[in-house]
């Protein structure tokens, strides 16, 4: 018998006469998936955190990793659907300059973004150790079938993309550069989109990924930045992720700040009000970059 299996056996000996802890945790994971799908994100988050509080030890790394993945997803879903975290209340003279009113108690989207970083950073840390956990115990699979088929690699990619999306929304350009230094393939638009599809990243988070890569690329590779800018604007308006100001800012870079002019085959320049060339029907994404000034 391998030493590793022996250590699991020793750890779990006391549990032999009691319910299989892996099965109990698997049920929590299964229920969390259902809760997230039905929008009950606070229930999912609470149950997953309770599971994390009890499932300690290296034999549980795999289940803990997926609990972190689901917690990241729960907070991401809550941030765009129905936040269950709130802004502070009863805070004296706190004042919202946007609404020109006191704003305590309103739902906190930013709180959920921060919580996504909290849980995804745990998952990112545990990813390397998931191989130390068993896939099966006493004839029972330790993961729900959905998570087994999804896979640890996809879950890790998902959490890294969430990290990038949150940093993009919070405007941490330096942080994005550090992240992309380790995830270079995201600067390839087709590859980036394939990965987002592969891990089923939520539509509401995708504009922020595009925007993050756009901001990173505009100082490095302007024609490439243009393609991410177009996708950011398209997807951002489709899911109403961006305000008009951010969309206009991106368009302004294309029309004024870039060293390139982006034109259709009919030499029609990019127009933020249009989806493509009115002559050839070429979509904005396919426009060519023509160097205007070095």
């Amino acid at each position, binding site marked *: 018998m391998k030493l590793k299996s022996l250590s699991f056996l020793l750890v779990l000996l006391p549990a032999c006469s009691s319910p299989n802890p892996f099965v109990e945790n698997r049920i929590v994971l299964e229920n969390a998936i259902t809760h997230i799908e039905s929008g009950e994100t606070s229930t999912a988050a609470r149950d997953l955190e309770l599971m994390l509080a009890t499932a300690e030890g290296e034999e549980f790394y795999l289940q803990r990793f997926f609990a972190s993945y689901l917690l990241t997803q729960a907070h991401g879903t809550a941030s765009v659907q129905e936040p269950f975290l709130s802004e502070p209340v009863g805070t004296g003279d706190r004042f919202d300059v946007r609404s020109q009113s006191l704003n305590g108690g309103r739902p906190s989207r930013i709180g959920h973004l921060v919580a996504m970083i909290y849980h995804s950073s745990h998952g990112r840390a545990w990813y390397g150790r998931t191989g130390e956990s068993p896939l099966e115990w006493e004839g029972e699979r330790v993961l729900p079938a959905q998570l087994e*088929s999804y896979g640890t690699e996809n879950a890790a990619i998902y959490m890294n993309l969430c990290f990038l999306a949150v940093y993009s929304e919070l405007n941490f350009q330096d942080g994005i550069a550090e*992240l992309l230094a380790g995830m270079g393939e995201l600067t390839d638009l087709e590859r980036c989109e394939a990965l987002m599809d592969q891990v089923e990243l939520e539509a509401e988070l995708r504009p922020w990924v595009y925007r993050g890569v756009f901001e990173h690329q505009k100082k490095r590779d302007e024609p490439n930045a243009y393609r991410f800018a177009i996708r950011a604007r398209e997807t951002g308006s489709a899911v109403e992720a961006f305000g008009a100001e951010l969309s206009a800012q991106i368009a302004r870079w294309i029309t004024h700040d870039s060293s390139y002019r982006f034109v259709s085959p009919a030499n029609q320049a990019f127009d933020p009000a249009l989806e493509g060339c009115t002559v050839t029907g070429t979509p904005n994404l396919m426009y060519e970059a023509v160097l205007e000034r070095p």
Partner: protein
Amino acid sequence: MRRVLGWLMCAIGTVGCAGSPPIVKSDVVGATAAFDGFPPQALEGIVYAQALFDGDYEDTFGTDLVTRGVVPVHVTMQLRGQGQENAQILIKPGRMDARLYLIDGTALPHVTADEVAGALKEKFAREVRQHAFQGGLLGSEPNEGYLFFSLQSEGEFEAQGRAVRHDVDGIQRRLDLTHSLLAFDVMVEDTPKAFYVGIQR
């Protein structure tokens, strides 16, 4: 080739291949550097901001504010870059909608220096008022001081050095204060700009 690689991964027993399309190896999966806090500086237009959780804050105030339920965050703001000479940007701590998000997403409310001082002995209260962030018209010189956030409005907290233990729904979370996120708004040319700044240790 990618397909072959994917099936090869299935064959060597990678979790997650049963019944799923082959997964292409990605370098995105490997980016797992430990989280060490949000970036502690922000530059929006010409407004620069920086935040710090000063380990010596007890020396500054003469008392441990965190154990008294108040988190002091040292903030520096100034103008940087073209146009700073003519800019008129006024900061008032009570009107910047400052919040401190603990890393679990809990938002702590801003409390004024007077509110903090009101609960302290006079000698400590004087230090709190003296070192508080006063705001004012921003310029090229740093405008700095402490903003204060209350730990007493949400759930149960217990100070543990540079961390707090947050009890919520029967779950205990140990949260590093330097992993928090400071958020506030600044009016720039009549438009509110949101600032998000990590906390330097």
